[in-house]
């Protein structure tokens, strides 16, 4: 598909959903070996909105999310076809450096996975790799700014040298968000970021997502319907590797067009 036709279609999508296009996916298929996990999915991610992916377990939400920053490259058997763009540029194209891409499209995982290093070093890891700070004061500033944005600064400012793994689960997850923010990404992908957390820690993360909205384009996978309704403006419902329905969160939850969506949201299966 040529760039112009992609943009044409993207413009129409934009008109349909509102918001500035950040990432687009067109006709994406993902295979693990010969098994197809994602079938012909097209979707837009907008700058201003939080996009939620919902759907029953094994429907391919994580798989699709991982195509957006090419984390599927690390799975030997995975193969991705179709077009995915970031700011109109094909992210699977020959001139796209995957290392650069992942700095621009950050990711937060289901289980908090801080490195076994100090809190400071966890946050400084990305900026160091990408050479974002030349002197110690610059790095200190980045670390503080990132921890503040992740709502963790007040809790850890006196113990930045403690190990990141010594924090509570919720703090660890916010540390991972701070770590992702530290490289100043444009998009943040979150794969069930709250599934390992208690309700209070979950509420904190949701609040954080609200605050981060607008500054970063956010995509979140969640199993929790209320969470999707609370934090997102756009919702995509996946089922058996296909995108069944995509639209404004309010529409999906109050007035789904597909019976499959309706059944899932009302808890009839999944």
């Amino acid at each position, binding site marked *: 598909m040529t760039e112009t036709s992609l943009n044409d279609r993207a413009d129409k999508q934009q008109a349909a959903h509102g918001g500035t296009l950040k990432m687009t996916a067109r006709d994406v298929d993902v295979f693990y070996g010969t098994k197809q996990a994602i079938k012909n999915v097209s979707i837009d991610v907008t700058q201003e909105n939080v996009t939620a992916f919902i759907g029953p377990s094994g429907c391919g939400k994580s798989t699709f999310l991982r195509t957006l*920053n090419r*984390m599927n490259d*690390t799975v*030997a058997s995975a193969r991705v076809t179709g077009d995915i763009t970031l700011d109109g540029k094909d992210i699977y194209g020959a001139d796209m450096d995957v*290392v*650069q*891409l*992942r*700095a621009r499209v*950050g*990711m937060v*995982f289901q*289980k908090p*996975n*801080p*490195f*076994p*290093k100090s809190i400071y070093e966890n946050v400084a*890891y*990305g900026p160091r*790799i*990408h050479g974002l700070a030349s002197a110690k004061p610059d790095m200190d500033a980045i670390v503080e700014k990132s921890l503040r944005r992740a709502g963790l600064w007040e809790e850890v400012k006196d113990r930045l040298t403690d190990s990141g793994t010594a924090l509570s689960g919720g703090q660890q997850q916010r540390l*991972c968000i701070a*770590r*992702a923010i530290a*490289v100043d990404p444009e998009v943040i992908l979150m794969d069930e970021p709250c599934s390992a957390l208690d309700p209070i820690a979950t509420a904190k993360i949701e609040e954080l997502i609200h605050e981060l909205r607008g500054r970063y384009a956010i995509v979140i996978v969640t199993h929790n319907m209320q969470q999707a309704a609370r934090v997102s403006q756009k919702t995509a419902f996946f089922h058996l590797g296909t995108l069944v329905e995509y639209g404004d969160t309010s529409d999906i939850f109050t007035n789904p067009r597909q019976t499959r969506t309706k059944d899932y949201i009302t808890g009839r299966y999944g």
Partner: protein
Amino acid sequence: MSPALFLLLVAGLAFIGWITGRARAARFTGTGANRPHSLPGYHGWYVALWALAPALLFLAVWGFVSPGLVDATVTATPQSAAIRLDPADLTAEVRALGTGALTTAFHPEVVPLVPVFQRVQTHYDVIGGVVALLLAFAGGAFAYTRVKPDFRARTRVEQLVMAALLGASLIAVLTTLGIVLSLLFESMRFFARVSPIEFLFGTLWSPQTGDSGTFGAVPLFWGTIFIGAIIAMIVAIPLGLMSAIYLTQYAAPATRRWMKPILEVLAGVPTVVYGYFAALTVAPAIRDFAAFVGIPGASSESALAAGLVMGVMIIPFVSSMADDSIAAVPQSMRDGSLAMGATTSETIRKVLVPAALPGVVGGVLLAVSRAIGETMIVVMAAGLAANLTANPFSSVTTVTTQIVQLLTGDQEFDSAKTLAAFALGLVLFIVTLLLNIVALRVVKKYREAYE
């Protein structure tokens, strides 16, 4: 009747015990609270074990006791009193002739005693066998009477199985203990002649036959460390670590499938093969090289040759420990780093290796402890000169080499020279033990961190 036949009979009794015990238990009925406690099979085993264990124990003891009784009886006969020979030599020769271990007698006068010996031997064999049979029967009968519906045969059998397993592990522990004690004991005798201070801190090693000579073991300790902990590790740590990183992080599964076993084969090569490889190929090459570039003091047996080959031998240890600890770092660490836009090699250097470091260090310590105890390579390639030198091209000697040296050839057993081997062995044992303890602790700590 031979002892083997009695053994067979005892086994037969046990089998009968198994059948009858089982049959008796099979007749028990009852449901609910009155349900028999154990399945019939357990009762069968209970009876069989009672028939077997006391009889076998007795036979084992009898096996130790009866030769003495036989010998005593043979020496007490009037025929043997007439023979002018040391009683111990006499019985030894008669026994050898009687059992067929010897076909012609050194002393023809003992030949008439051989039938006497055989008669006495048979006599005691029969006594032992009959007692064993009686014990088997008594044990079986006792157990049979205990077979009742509420008898906990299953628990008893379980206890016996546990006791057997405990016994098996005790054998290993006790053997180790025995070795340690004998090392300690002989070392004490050595230190009664040579002061521990001289031994541990003296720098001149020159044992002479008998009690003369100086026993300063520092050159030996240095040689051991130089070869095993320095040169060998300079080879083994980087190569082992890098091959582990390649195998876990870069190699395609197909490559890993054939490469890992080949690497592990290195660990299975007999050390004597490494030894002659070191002595016949590597050492001359190093000597020629040293001569070529004009390094003085190059000898045909060099620390470098032994250390290099030992390093190669150790690679699989380091690599498989490093492999395990890198593989034990959760995949989520790797994903987390890659998702930050780190390259594979940045991820390895900055996340995986630091996280795996304790495991790697533990592996290295284990490898060192193995290297300093290694004997064959250094005996063949390192040499015997107790030099205190840091020149890798010159010949040094190690603790293990010297132990071999001290104990080969004709030696009086209680000379200082021979006893020095035990003192060296003790030092080696203590050092390897400490290294192992530290290494296992480090590794365990690390495992806990991720599990």
